[in-house]
């Protein structure tokens, strides 16, 4: 095919690129196939059109933290899962709590995590999230020992299908709203 000329051809190129990518593609990356012959505004418009074209079909075009990707609609997840029954184990509670602290309280040190959870942090937990590229070190706190500060990455957001941290479920205090502490008589 020569360089795409019509809107239809451009949409086909974008579809081909996105359906084969296996990961989110940024706007800059999505401009590359057009070798300088496409405006960002046009690209955005085309992406919106493709998104609309795929309404009610097997896949959906979604924008996540690091770009655009096609993913199977949630309702098909169970059927896809049946192809490969052995699935990745889910994280332990300790791991999830550690991840939650980093996600909601970032940037945090290991000391902060230990303070919140009341127990020592298992280094393997940190390592598994670093290996998955869900967390990384973003600096050091300027206190003695200069402990590393951890934060979640763009990949973490991508993998949860989020565009930004603000899309995380809001953290809730189940306890009743602020009640002034009444000094109770010693029991």
């Amino acid at each position, binding site marked *: 095919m020569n360089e795409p000329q019509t809107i239809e051809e451009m949409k086909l190129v974008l579809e081909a690129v996105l359906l084969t990518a296996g990961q989110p593609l940024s706007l800059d990356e999505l401009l590359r196939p057009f070798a300088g012959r496409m405006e960002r505004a046009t690209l955005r418009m085309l992406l919106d059109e493709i998104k609309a074209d795929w309404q009610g079909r097997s896949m959906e075009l979604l924008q996540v933290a690091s770009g655009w990707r096609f993913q199977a609609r949630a309702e098909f997840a169970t059927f896809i899962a049946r192809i490969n029954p052995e699935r*990745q184990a889910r994280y332990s509670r300790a791991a*999830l709590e550690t991840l939650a602290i980093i996600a909601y309280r970032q940037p945090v040190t290991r000391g902060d995590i230990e303070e919140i959870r009341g127990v020592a942090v298992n280094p393997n937990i940190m390592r598994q999230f670093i290996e998955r590229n869900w967390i990384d070190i973003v600096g050091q706190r300027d206190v003695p020992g200069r402990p590393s500060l951890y934060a979640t990455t763009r990949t973490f957001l991508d993998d949860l299908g989020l565009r930004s941290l603000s899309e995380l479920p809001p953290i809730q205090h189940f306890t009743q709203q602020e009640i002034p502490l009444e*000094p109770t008589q010693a029991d």
Partner: protein
Amino acid sequence: MSAQLAIDARIYGEQLDSIPHDLYIPPDALEIYLDAFEGPLDLLLYLIRKHNLDILDIPMAELTRQYMDYVEKMREEKLELAADYLLMSAMLIEIKSRMLLPKPEAIEQEEDPRAELVRRLMEYEAIKLAAQRLDDMPQLGQEIQVAQAYYEQISQVQWPEVSFEELMTAWQSVLKRASHFQHHKVGRAELSVREHMSLVLRRLQQESLLEFTQLFDVMNEGLPRLVVYFLAILELAREGLVRITQQEAFSPIYLQAADMMVTSHE
């Protein structure tokens, strides 16, 4: 270990005489039972929630007493697990003792000694719930499946850039090194001749035999170009790259690439 663990604890007067059933853990497995908690805060939270205590109005004595029972069991069974829990006991006892002390008028404004504990419990509970929410979220590779259709990978060769300045520089360095180039005149005109030598050779590769006049597009080419073509042919002949043949005077002149002669004539 006895099948029924005696836990001497009372919360709001309720006797807690066995390991809570709602954990689905065999009562003789204290270690596992304690492993089910993520630490002293988790255990405290459990005790508070289990007995529906108001987290903002913790009855310190009861809580501390019950907590200490757990710690005591831990000390018996699995010491290394107890460190974090012991620290918490110390904190609970400290809070309790501060609450027992009579408050002088002067420090009436002192914060409730339980405040720090309550703050930590609330923060931990919030994180505990957030962790559950995170776990419930769709995850890549589990609920989220990304399109990754196959495509033919063509190695997109990115050729290096070459500017003609670079080419000239390269040429100059060649000239500098090759002293025998003094015999050659290299310049605009000659370049053009050499280009036309290549052009003539290309045509002769396609049409093995070419009539002399066919090489000259008199209608479309300007005089300088025709001259350059002619020079190119002479140079090709001189270098033995083409054969120029004529059967007799005034008959057509034919050009043939020297290397094509063998195949075409024999």
